[in-house]
C-alpha cells in the first residue's frame, strides 16, 4: 500500500469512472509515474478491473509506467518546431544522452520525452526541462544546456 496513492484516493471519495483520469494524473504527479501497485489500488477504489485501467492509461500519452529520471526533457515536435529544425535538435539529444525518446539515461539523470506541441510556436524550436523553457534551440546549444543540468547535479553531489 503506497501512502501517496492512498492520499490521492482519499481526495476522491465515492468516485466513479469519470474520476479515473484525474486520479491517474494526481498519482503520476506525486509518484512521478503510474506503478503496477497504483493501478491495482485505483482499481479497487473504483471497482474496475486493472485491465480497464491499463486500457485507459496506455491510450493517453501523458502516463508513464516507469520511474522517470531526475530531469525530464520535453522536446516539442509541433509543426512550427519541425519547420525550424527540431528534428536535428532531437537527433542531437538522442546522440548526446544516448537514449531513445521515451527512455531514461543510465545514470538516471535525464528522461527524454517527445511532445506533440508545447504551445510556444513563436519561439520554435523549443525544449522544456522540468517545465523551464528553452527557446530557439540549435543542435549546438544542446550540449551547453545539458551541461548546465549536469553541473547542478554535480554540485548537489547527487550524480549516480
Amino acid at each position, binding site marked *: 500500500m503506497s501512502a501517496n496513492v492512498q492520499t490521492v484516493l482519499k481526495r476522491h471519495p465515492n468516485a466513479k469512472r469519470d474520476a479515473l483520469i*484525474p486520479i491517474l*494524473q494526481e498519482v503520476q504527479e506525486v509518484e512521478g509515474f503510474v506503478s503496477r501497485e497504483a493501478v491495482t489500488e485505483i482499481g479497487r477504489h473504483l471497482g474496475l478491473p486493472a485491465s480497464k485501467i491499463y486500457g485507459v492509461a496506455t491510450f493517453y500519452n501523458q502516463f508513464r509506467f516507469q520511474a522517470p529520471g531526475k530531469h525530464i526533457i520535453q522536446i516539442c515536435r509541433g*509543426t512550427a518546431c519541425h*519547420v525550424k529544425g527540431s528534428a536535428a535538435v532531437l537527433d542531437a539529444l538522442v546522440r548526446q544522452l544516448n537514449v531513445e525518446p521515451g527512455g531514461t539515461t543510465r545514470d538516471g539523470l535525464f528522461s527524454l520525452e517527445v511532445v*506533440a506541441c508545447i504551445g510556444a*510556436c513563436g519561439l520554435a524550436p523549443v525544449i522544456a526541462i522540468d517545465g523551464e523553457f528553452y527557446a530557439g534551440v540549435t543542435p549546438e546549444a544542446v550540449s551547453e544546456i545539458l551541461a548546465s543540468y549536469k553541473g547542478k547535479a554535480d554540485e548537489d553531489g547527487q550524480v549516480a
Partner: protein
Amino acid sequence: MAKLLDEKCCDRCWHSPGKPCPDLVACLAGVKSCHDSPECIEARQQEISMLRRDDVRRPTVFVGAGTCGLGAGAGKTLKTLRAYLAEKAIEADIVEVGCIGLCAAEPLVDIQMPGKPRVSFQKIKQDKIVQLMDEMLDGRVPQDMVLGQFRSDKLTAWDGVPMVDEHPFFAPQTRWVLANCGLIDPGSIDEYIARGGYRAFADSIRSTTPKDLCDVVEQSGLRGRGGGGFPTGRKWKFALNTPSDQKYLICNADEGDPGAFMDRAVIEGDPHRLLEGMAIAAYAMGASKAYVYIRAEYPLAIERLKQAIAQAKEYGLLGHNILDSGFSLEIIIKMGAGAFVCGEETALINSIEGKRGMPRPRPPFPAVQGLFGKPTIINNVETLSNLPPLISNGAEWFSAVGTANSKGTKVFALSGKVDRTGLVEVAMGTPIRQIVMDIGGGIPGGKKFKAVQIGGPSGGCIPTQHLDTEIDYESLKQVGAIMGSGGLVVMDEGTCMVDVAKFFMDFIQRESCGKCIPCREGTRRMLDILKRITRSRRNEAGLGALERFQGVMYLTRLAESIKDTSLCGLGQTAPSPVLSTLRWFRDEYEAHIFDRRCPSGVCKDLLHYRIDTVKCKGCTLCAKKCPADAIMGAPKSPHYIVPDKCISCGNCEEVCRFHAVVKE
C-alpha cells in the same frame, strides 16, 4: 489594492453573498447605483479609472509573463527588476500580464510613468532592464528598445515615440478576442470588470431569455472557431430544444493542433473573458454544469483558470443562483491527458467520462445525447471568448465585420519561417498575403516564400499563387485547406513539402485512436509510402523498388478511401496534408520519386555529398570522422567521397573547416 467587492460605496449598499444584488456588476463598474446616488457612482468611477490605469500614481512596470514570455526569459527579467527596485528603494508596481501576441519580441516590458502613456519595450532580457529603468526613471525613453506607446486621449504622449497601434504588426489587426491580452492583469477580476467585463452576462441573465440569446448569436453569424465552422447559435438551439433534467456545456481547450497556441494565450492573458463566454453560452442552452477540457501541457493556463474560477465564485458570478436570477452554473476543469483525437467532440466526451478517447458514431449528436447521455454542447475557447463583445454590442455590430458567410474576426498563431511570429487577430476576409507579409513581416534572411500551412494536420498548404485568398471558411476550402483552429505555419524555400506531408502523416498515424480500420491502417500505409518516396536507392533491397512505385500509384486512391470511410473528423481529414501538397507541389514529389532528389535539401537519405577539389586541403579530418569509410584520399591532396558507400550522414560537412564538402 483592496478588492472592488469588499469596498461598499456607502451604507445603503445591501449586497451580500447570501442575498446578491442583481445590479452588482453595473454597480462595481460605476455605471449604475441601486440608490441613485451620483456620489457613489463618481467614487466607483474613480476606482475603475485606477484599475484601467488611465493614469498611474507611481511608476508601473508590466512584464509579459505568458508561456512565451517566460520561455524567452521574462522570469529572469522579473527577478532582476525586483532586485533593482528593492536596491534603489523605488516605489513602483509590477504587474505580470499575459501575452500581447508579438512572441518574436519577447520578453516584452511595458512601463507607465505618472501622467504619461504606457510605453512598450521589446526584447528586454535581464541584462537590459537596469539600463531601461535608469533611463525611464530619468524621464527618457531609450529609443533602441522601444516598440511603441499606447494611445491615450487624456495623457500627453511621449515625443518621438511611435504609437503601438501604428506598428506594422498591430495596425492591420482587429482585436476583439485579444482585446485585453497583454494589457490587463489576468489574476484580477477587478481589472476585467473595469474594462466592461461580466456586463454582457449580468444583463443577459436578467433581461434576455435563452431563446433570444440563441437568436442573437445565430443572427450575428458566429461560427465555430474550432475548425468545423458550424453556426454556434443553431447548435445551441438543438440543445435548448431537447428537454432534459441536466444539460452540459463543454469548453474545448484541448488545443492539440501542433502549431496552434491561441487558446493558451487567451486563457493565460484573459481567463475571465472565457468564463464570461461560458456563462453566457450555458445560460443560452440551459446548462447548469460546464467543463473546461484543457491540455495538461498548459500548466500556467490551468493555474490562471483555477484562480479566475475561484474569483468569479467569490463575486457570485458563478455558483448557485447567480445575481439572484435563479440561474446556477458550476465550472469544472478537466485536464486532457495528451491525445490529439480528444479534440473531436465525441472522443472528448468519452475522455471526460473516464474512458479511452475514442469517437462515437453520430447520430445521436452530442447536442441531443452527449456527456453521460445528456444534451451537451461543445464550443471552442475562441468561439466562447467572442461572446462577451458580441452580446454587449449586438448581432449587427458583429456581422458588420467579415465576408458574406464568415463574420467577425479570427485569431491565428503565426509561426515558422516568418519574421514576426506571434498571435494575430484579423477580420474575416483579410488576404493571407497581408497576414504573412505585412503583419508577419515576410520571410527572414531574404529567402523565398513557398507555402503557408493552415489548419494543422487536418488542413492544407496554400502556395504562392493563392496567397491572395481571403480568410473565409468557404474560400479556404476551395484551395484545399480549412480554417482549422488557427495554426498558420509559414514555410520558405528551405522547407521540403514531401517532408512536411510525411511529418503530418507520422503525427496522425501515431494519434489515430485505432477504432476504425481506414484511419488506423490507412494512415500507417500512407506514411510507409511517403517514407519509401524519400528513401535512397541504396537502402532498397529485393522488391523495394517495385513496392515503391506501387505505393506511389495507390497514394491518392488510398487517401480518397480514408477520407470517405473513416469514422470521425480526424480520419476524414487525415489525408489532407498529402493531397494538398500533392496538388500544389507535384514537381517536388516528382523530383523525389523519379530523380531521387530533394530540391530543398531536407530529406537526408536523398542528399549527395561531394568534395570540392579546389577547396579541399587534404587534412583527412573528414575521412577519420566518416562512419562508413566512404572518403578516400592521401594526406595533403584532395579527397573523394565514394557515392556507393556514402550513407549521407553529413558528418563530413559538419567537421570540414574549409567548407569543401558540397551538399546537393
